[in-house]
């Protein structure tokens, strides 16, 4: 009888220690570990350039990139460019996502409309969106309209496909629960269909937003007088790699912030799902 007891008392502290270790790695520890490699590489490059092993002409060291970012920010120039880019993405996202939700909902709920529209939309989806650029420039000139149009096209398709798919795959069994309790069509849409399609719709919107940032680069590369993409082109033409890298970093930060904002704003709507993810 004493054998197992001894084993138990032995095992308990070991188990506690291992949970402590995994808690450390699970929280901030894991994030720090992920930062280790980029920080090491950046530090090494900094030292290499500072000690003369490399010139850093084509790939400036972190300090020069930081200085470029700082001077752009201090002069206020950076914010003008960020604002221009954000407005384009925002407009394109609003139009593209709005149209995607509208068409997705309509084609998924009205079969005749689906038979009419879906084949054409799927055909258009097969066209790489960047192929529209020349046509958009011919149609809309080179100012804001073709840029917003390109972003909207890029956002539209994932949202359209996501929303239509979400509605089509709503569980018929849950719809029957609504029928048993005699919900009106409107109440059925509000109390069952809407919550059921929300998670997939939000995922589609997130994908759409990501593509919006992808296409804003393309749109701004085709000619712009402001925007983060303009900083890229300008940096290339005047051979300023530090400015290019500063713009790339700004893109990453702004894109990530926009994505985080979307997730944070919408997460209360799918709280019931998040609990599921936590327990996975």
């Amino acid at each position, binding site marked *: 009888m004493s054998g197992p007891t001894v084993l138990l008392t032995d095992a308990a502290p070991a188990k506690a220690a291992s949970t402590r270790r995994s808690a450390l790695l699970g929280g901030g520890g894991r994030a720090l570990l992920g930062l280790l490699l980029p920080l090491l590489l950046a530090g090494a490059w900094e030292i290499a350039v500072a000690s003369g092993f490399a010139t850093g002409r084509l790939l400036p060291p972190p300090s020069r990139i930081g200085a470029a970012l700082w001077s752009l920010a201090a002069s206020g120039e950076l914010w003008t460019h960020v604002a221009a880019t954000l407005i384009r993405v925002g407009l394109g996202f609003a139009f593209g996502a709005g149209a995607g939700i509208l068409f997705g909902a309509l084609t998924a709920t009205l079969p005749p409309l689906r038979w009419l529209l879906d084949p054409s939309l799927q055909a258009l989806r097969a066209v790489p969106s960047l192929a529209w650029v020349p046509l958009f420039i011919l149609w809309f000139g080179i100012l804001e309209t073709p840029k917003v149009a390109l972003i909207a096209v890029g956002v539209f398709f994932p949202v359209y496909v996501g929303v239509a798919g979400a509605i089509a795959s709503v569980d018929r*069994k849950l719809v*029957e*629960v609504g029928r*048993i*309790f005699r919900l009106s069509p409107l109440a059925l849409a509000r*109390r069952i269909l809407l919550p059921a399609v*929300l998670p997939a719709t939000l995922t589609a919107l997130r994908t759409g937003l990501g593509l919006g940032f992808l296409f804003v680069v393309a749109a701004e590369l085709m000619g712009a007088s402001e925007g983060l993409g303009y900083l890229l082109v300008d940096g290339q033409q005047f051979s300023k790699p530090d400015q290019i890298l500063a713009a790339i970093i700004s893109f990453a930060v702004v894109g990530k912030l926009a994505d985080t904002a979307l997730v944070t704003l919408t997460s209360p709507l799918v709280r019931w799902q998040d*609990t599921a993810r936590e327990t996975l």
Partner: protein
Amino acid sequence: MLSLQSLSKTYADGTRALEAIDLAVPNAEIVALIGGSGCGKTTLLRLVAGLDRPSAGRIALDGEPITGPHPGVGLVFQEPRLLPWLDVAANVGFGVSDLPRRERAERVAHALERVGLAEHAGRWPRELSGGQQQRVSIARAFVANPRVLLLDEPFSALDAFTRKDLHRHLLALWEEVRPTVLIVTHDVSEAVALADRAIVMRPKPGRLDESVALPLRRPRDPAAPASEAATRTILGALDRSLRPRDAARTPELAGGSSF
């Protein structure tokens, strides 16, 4: 009184799921429908619930024809079918959203207490076990105070212990509201534990076969001689239902047999 008159259902693909079903269930009676899969048990409940339309015949509740989902008829599906985006209390209150908030909260709390889930009111459905989920779905049906409650193999996915526990909860709720109950099962002991009458179904096309009255006192002891005799009678009826129709004697529903 729930009455079905020459009720038939032939699906679009030609499957004759039910043919000429005649059944009258007095108020507050508990009827168990027993039969193998494919007998048309689910089809029968869906017709009574108004989810599907019969190909022929009529259904009436206290003389009022049922042509679609009806406020007096509740259905507990084979799976719990809880809405994952609502917590347990909101799921239970789903069907009574037109009640004033206070009364709704009271009825939900009472029903949850009845099924022993009062402390789980704020949980998400996926945080519950299968048995607990099915209890929530039974509470959801009871909260609407149905005159007829239909249950489609509600406990078939659960282990024997949980099932017994749920029988107790179901009977407690039934005592309170005293609805007419049609419960589908393929478990003879479940029928003996719950029902006032067991009706055996036979397939292809689905029909009602023998009917066995179960005038046992509640609470019932499955080991009591009366329960064992009832179980044997139902098993015998089930056996006969599996034989070809004309070979067996055909005691139609009318008289039915007691044991």
